[in-house]
């Protein structure tokens, strides 16, 4: 359902050309949970930007659900992102001074959904990530884990087919991290394709497939044998999922 065909991305930094990606081929099946792993500077973020339609490749093509998107205009890409792709970032990227509910409503605003319908769907998405009682809170009144769950609710609210998570647990303590991974695995069980970009082997092993990338090339593509299920890790650790998780020890 998502395919990158020999995509390359080349940046010009002064007089030096930096090849962030060199003819990468990658296909992600519908409903798959996949991790892209590599050290920093390997090109994994660039790859995520390309399959997340935030950027266009220098050469090669990206196909989402049979639709060639690499030649689309920025506005057309924005519309496809809005409908089909949800993003979860390492640093949450919520709008400050804006309530959790309004943050989750944001993609629906740009999708042209009317006010009451928007609130209803945003509320449902926040309930799904266990934040039904935090609708009116501002990001700075929420713990890191709660903020990331708001971000996941925002990614879900448009019913996307893919959720892209860039180091989703990078700024979280371990128990909040487990919560977030649990939610991502739940989403995947409900049929949403989940792609995680990480340099952490533990995080990557929550998915069913790991693509290793180094120096702009895919070096290994493996199926995960001993998959970590966050739900099982979580149960003995914490009982209440609404505990503020930002104060890790």
């Amino acid at each position, binding site marked *: 359902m998502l395919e990158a065909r020999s995509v390359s991305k080349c940046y010009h930094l002064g007089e030096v050309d930096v090849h962030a990606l060199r003819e990468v081929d990658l296909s992600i099946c519908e409903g798959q949970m996949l991790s892209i792993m590599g050290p920093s500077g390997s090109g994994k973020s660039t790859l995520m930007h390309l399959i997340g339609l*935030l950027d266009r490749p220098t050469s090669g093509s990206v196909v989402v659900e049979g639709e060639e998107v690499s030649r689309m205009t920025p506005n057309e890409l*924005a519309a496809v992102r809005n409908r089909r792709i949800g993003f979860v970032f390492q640093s949450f*990227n919520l709008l400050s*001074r*804006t309530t959790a509910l309004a943050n989750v409503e944001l993609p629906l*605003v*740009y*999708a*042209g959904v009317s006010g009451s319908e928007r609130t209803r769907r945003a509320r449902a998405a926040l309930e799904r990530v266990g934040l039904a009682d935090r609708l009116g809170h501002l990001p700075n009144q929420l713990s890191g884990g709660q903020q990331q769950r708001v971000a996941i609710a925002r990614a879900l609210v*448009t019913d996307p087919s893919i959720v892209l998570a860039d180091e989703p647990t990078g700024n979280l303590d371990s128990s909040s991290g487990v919560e977030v991974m649990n939610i991502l695995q739940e989403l995947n069980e409900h049929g949403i394709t989940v792609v995680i970009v990480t340099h952490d082997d533990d995080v990557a092993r929550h998915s069913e497939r790991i693509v290793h990338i180094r120096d702009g090339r895919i070096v290994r593509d493996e199926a995960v044998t001993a998959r970590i299920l966050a739900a099982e890790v979580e149960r003995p650790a914490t009982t209440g999922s609404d505990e503020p998780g930002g104060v890790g020890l």
Partner: protein
Amino acid sequence: MNVVESFRIALRALGANKVRSALTMLGVIIGVAAVILLVAIGSGVQDEITGSIEGLGSNLVFVFAGNFEDGGGPGGGITIRRQFTLEDADLVQRRLDDRHAVVPIVQGPATLRVGNRTMRTTIAAGNEFSDTVFTSEYESGRGYRRSEVVAASRVVVIGSSVRDRLFPNQDPLGRTLNVSGQRFTVIGHVVAQGGSLTGDQDNQIYMPVTTAQRLLGSTDISSIVVKADTADEVDAVKHQVESILRPGFGDEFTVLTQDQTLGLFQAILGTLTFMLAGIAGISLLVGGIGIMNIMLVSVSERTREIGIRKAVGARTHDIMSQFVIEAVSLSVVGGVVGIALGAAGAAVLQQWVPTEVTVWAVGLAFTFSAAVGIFFGVYPAYKASRLDPIEALRYE
């Protein structure tokens, strides 16, 4: 995304930086208030002068020495080679039909003294027809008669301000008034007419033209005023006066009807009003630059927000309209407050200067402030809308 939504986002963003928004608006508020206030003064003065000229009656023809139509010398002034004298006024009176009244006018400064009270004032002198021509009304007493004009009697009619200053709570009739060192008898007291920018008529004294010439030591007269018997005859009288004076003066005199005088004043005051509006407009422009400045700051501060909005699906025009609406809201709200402030200021100033808040000034100020918002908001908004989402998300 619809316009209502854009407005909500813009207003929320402005509310988040209240002090900054208010200060930015202040630039527009001052500009718009200045436009409203200065134009109000301009129009008010114009109305007042128009009113006071029209108040003289519509049948008047004014004759001045010097040619106004040439526009004068390099400095724009009018050189007067020869002033009128009483003989010229007599000539006009004799040659015109008796039904038309001719008044030679002399104006000049004077110092008044009664006991130890003194004041400076202006003399307006004419002949026995002055009362009919200028439709004077007397609080008490009478105007000067023909015999007093012929004899150059030292009689004087005083305006109401003069009475209040020199004869407070007294009946001035028959009292002695010292005018520039000579003793005059007060014979009349004119009804208060209110202030006027053409010269405060309440602050004047009136006397026979011959008396005034002696007092001022001159045989010149300032102008000649002719009142045509009917309004239909004004143009005919004007042409007759021209042909009477041409042999003696050539082109060196000007005859203006009431309408022409009005037109002249209105042209001058209209230009003045536009100039005032222009000066005020510059401050509005400066206010607009303030908006642009703050919007540019706002765009770079909110780079990350723009990145987030783009990542979740905002298109170029969504971001563009958000920032343009923000700038326009600043300028429009500033414009409305400025209009209110300018109108309030005009109402307060009314005590000293005639003011009139005109619809066109309000419309112009409002349109201009909205235009300033759009003009100065578009560039920062364009900058915001072109941001690369990846760059914007990376921005700290």
